[in-house]
């Protein structure tokens, strides 16, 4: 093999550039194919699958005299299928069948009663399928093998979503199995336009990643971009969709997530119908969708299932809660220490009275309580379920009540911190709520230095950051800025379904019309 001298000289650059590195090594790597000798094939497989005790090699004879080996991975392949269908039909029911033509094709077409059977010649493909749960049939004197779809491992049953609960709406959630998840989505959208494109990511994990979109609704540019970014990933393993999320993010340094994840098939279906793209990752119930806008963190699937008055009210409430959880402690500090004249005199006096014995300035008081709250909250998540609730209630009561009576913090501060913490839970998206949780501390510090001006400064800084974000080419703050009056009906409120005549404009939709009949025509 000839390697040009300049490529050897450029070795330093090659080490940096992954794409080129791949090209470089592929020259050395020979693709290995099956040979006619069964012994040799088995040897190669055993060498590659060295010390993999979960791989089983079952030797037997087809029709009493043709030697064959079935290779499968224990636990991944469905043993009942292997026993009753593969082995039984090959060993016992093959005598009376007349085998004509190529043996492999004959076995495939006449003997094996399986939906999914494929011919292969590449060793690498064979190894991958064995490790994914398929069975491989190697036959003597054949340079082809058969992949038989016997994937059947234990997986969790479909349950109710645990992080996105609703009062009204479907109760099913994704599970860890990709096939089940795709089926759940297909059950919602039975159109041939719903496309699933498969990619494999991860050098070791070889995780299946499926890009789902509705052809004709999703912007082809965005689909292409998603695919391009996923294909560019070269990582040892993908264990959860967040790996992918961070690797294909437009704004890796931003505190705000620009890719949404959900464990609800109905949410994914709704997003796809708006022209977005979803990405399924095998092994996790959390499905990504993109491009994702800031406003969609304020939307819960339930908004669309309840009557629009209550949904709109709740959505406005959420925006209020967002402001409370971001600004309330900061505003409290700013008003009490810089602008006390804003408060009514009676309230001011009462606040001053409460603060009388407190030894710390308001900033320290807030930070102390906020951190304690965050610790309690995190402990509540991590503690074993049986003790979790008890400990967090006791912790909250003891710390809240005792801290006040010990005179370390003022009662008003406890109210503020508790309200802030609760308001944070109102946001339906946990990851966006997390960003707000962190930014709250920035606001508190700015407020304690510069009063309301500091709060405003912090707010404008955050808004400037949000306005500068783009996710797959779509401005993150749309449809608020750039404004699209038509789309406001699904931002601050949830407009009735009969007003949602067109899809959101910001995805550059090919097909704008959502419904045909206007309500008044009825």
């Amino acid at each position, binding site marked *: 093999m000839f390697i040009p001298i300049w490529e050897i000289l450029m070795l330093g650059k090659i080490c940096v550039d992954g794409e080129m590195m791949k090209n470089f090594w592929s020259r050395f790597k020979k693709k290995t194919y099956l040979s006619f000798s069964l012994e040799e094939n088995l040897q190669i497989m055993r060498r590659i699958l060295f010390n993999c005790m979960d791989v089983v090699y079952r030797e037997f004879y087809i029709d009493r005299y043709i030697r064959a080996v079935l290779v499968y991975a224990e636990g991944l392949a469905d043993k009942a299928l292997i026993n009753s269908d593969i082995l039984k039909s090959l060993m016992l029911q093959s005598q009376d069948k007349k085998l004509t033509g190529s043996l492999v094709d004959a076995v495939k077409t006449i003997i094996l009663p399986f939906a999914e059977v494929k011919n292969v010649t590449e060793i690498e493909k064979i190894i991958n399928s064995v490790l994914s749960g398929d069975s491989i049939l190697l036959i003597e004197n054949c340079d082809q093998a058969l992949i038989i779809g016997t994937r059947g491992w234990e997986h969790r049953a479909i349950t109710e979503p645990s992080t996105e609960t609703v009062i009204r709406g479907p109760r099913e959630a994704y599970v860890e199995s990709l096939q089940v998840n795709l089926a759940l989505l297909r059950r919602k959208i039975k159109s041939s336009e719903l496309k699933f494109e498969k990619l494999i990511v991860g050098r070791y994990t070889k995780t299946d990643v499926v890009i789902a979109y509705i052809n004709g609704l999703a912007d082809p540019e965005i689909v292409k971009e998603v695919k391009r970014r996923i294909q560019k990933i070269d990582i040892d393993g993908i264990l959860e969709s967040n790996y992918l999320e961070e690797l294909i993010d437009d704004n890796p340094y931003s505190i705000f997530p620009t890719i949404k994840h959900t464990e609800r098939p109905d949410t994914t279906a709704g997003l796809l119908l708006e022209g977005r793209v979803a990405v399924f990752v095998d092994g996790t119930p959390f499905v990504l969708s993109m491009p994702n806008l800031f406003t969609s963190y304020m939307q819960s699937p339930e908004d669309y299932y309840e009557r629009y008055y209550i949904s709109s009210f709740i959505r406005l409430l959420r925006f209020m809660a967002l402001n409370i959880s971001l600004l309330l402690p900061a505003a409290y500090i700013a008003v009490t220490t810089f602008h006390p004249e804003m408060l009514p005199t009676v309230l001011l006096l009462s606040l001053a009275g409460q603060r009388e014995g407190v030894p710390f300035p308001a900033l320290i008081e807030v930070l102390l309580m906020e951190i304690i709250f965050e610790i309690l909250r995190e402990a509540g998540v991590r503690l074993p379920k049986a003790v979790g609730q008890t400990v967090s209630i006791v912790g909250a009561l003891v710390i809240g009540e005792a801290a006040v009576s010990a005179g370390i913090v003022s009662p008003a501060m406890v109210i503020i911190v508790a309200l802030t913490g609760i308001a944070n839970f109102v946001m339906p998206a946990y990851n966006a709520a997390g960003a707000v949780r962190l930014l709250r501390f920035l606001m508190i510090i700015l407020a304690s230095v510069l009063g309301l001006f500091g709060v405003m400064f912090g707010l404008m800084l955050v808004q400037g950051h949000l306005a500068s974000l783009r996710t797959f080419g779509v401005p993150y703050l749309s449809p608020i800025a*750039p404004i699209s009056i038509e789309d406001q009906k699904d931002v601050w409120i949830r407009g009735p379904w009969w007003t949602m005549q067109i899809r959101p404009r910001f995805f550059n939709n090919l097909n704008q019309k959502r419904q045909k009949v206007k309500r008044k025509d009825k």
Partner: protein
Amino acid sequence: MPLEKGKISGKQLTVLYITTIVASAVVFLPGVVAAKAQQDAWISSIIAAITGFFLALLVLRLHSRFPEQNVIQYSRTILGKWPGLITGAGFAWFFIHINAVIIREFGAFLATVLPETPPVVFMALIVLLSAYYVRNGLEVCCRIAEFYFPIFVLQVVVIVLLVVKEVRWQLFEPILGAGWGPVIEGIFPPVMWFGEVITMSMILPYLHDKSQAARSLFLGVLLAGILFFLASFFTIGVFGGDLTANLNFPVFELARTISIAQFLERVDAVLMSFWVAGGVIKITTFNYCAVLGTAQLLNLSDYKPIILPLAVIQVFMALTGWENVGQLKYFINDIIAPYSLILFEGGIPLMLLVIARIRRLGVTK
């Protein structure tokens, strides 16, 4: 390669213009106008808005002749290399200078709310914020303006609605008591504000749909005029001409008179916050024009490196330009109006248009 790759919509242009004008106009102008025209300030504000239309028309005529160029570029096309460069440099200087005035105004304004903090802190922070916006490009500046625009309009309307019962009609009398003289004199400061439409001549080339230029700009002038009229009308109606003239920030004082249900008293600090937002957007617009213009004059391929140096220069100018608010007010009332109005907002554009017509330059229909 173009310096600015962003494109904005007509709506964004309107919003940016209004926020740029109204942010400081509503805060400072009623007092300035009332100092000249007394109780007839509201008449001055109407005439000023009408004059504003003509200034916008001037900018639009130039834009329609040179749709792909901004004022600094077409002054070079019209006047030739060196005179054009000098005129362009004049405009860049004008943007920097006016921005220094605005920065100082807002610094002074904030110092009344938080008297213990040195004003330089506010000025530096506001300019840094605007530099951050400018760094992110024109589209981001416009999105910020869009975000605050509804709040901004709403709060002027809310103030007006809440003080409407305080208006004493006899304060408007006598109408035109001193004749038209003071009224005409009171026009100049607000016209200067409306003349800030010259900043839009830096932004018009980035309009996505060129046919919307006239409509969005005129709509901007109209809405800004209405807001400004409301502000001056109601400050006069509540405080009267004399008092308004002597107040530094009359609309702010107007907000202080508000009391809702004995609970929300003195919401001025909240309003201050919104005005800060408006001020930041205004400063951002000027900062953007200054940065873009300077980069074009210096033939740079990217404007990002000069954002921070210009920000520092502007803060320095704002800090050292005037000893105190009194001097600043005198400067705004008596010096800057003729200087900016006659030279950069009206005079030079008019001259450019006339020369372009005579030399038959640009697109003619």
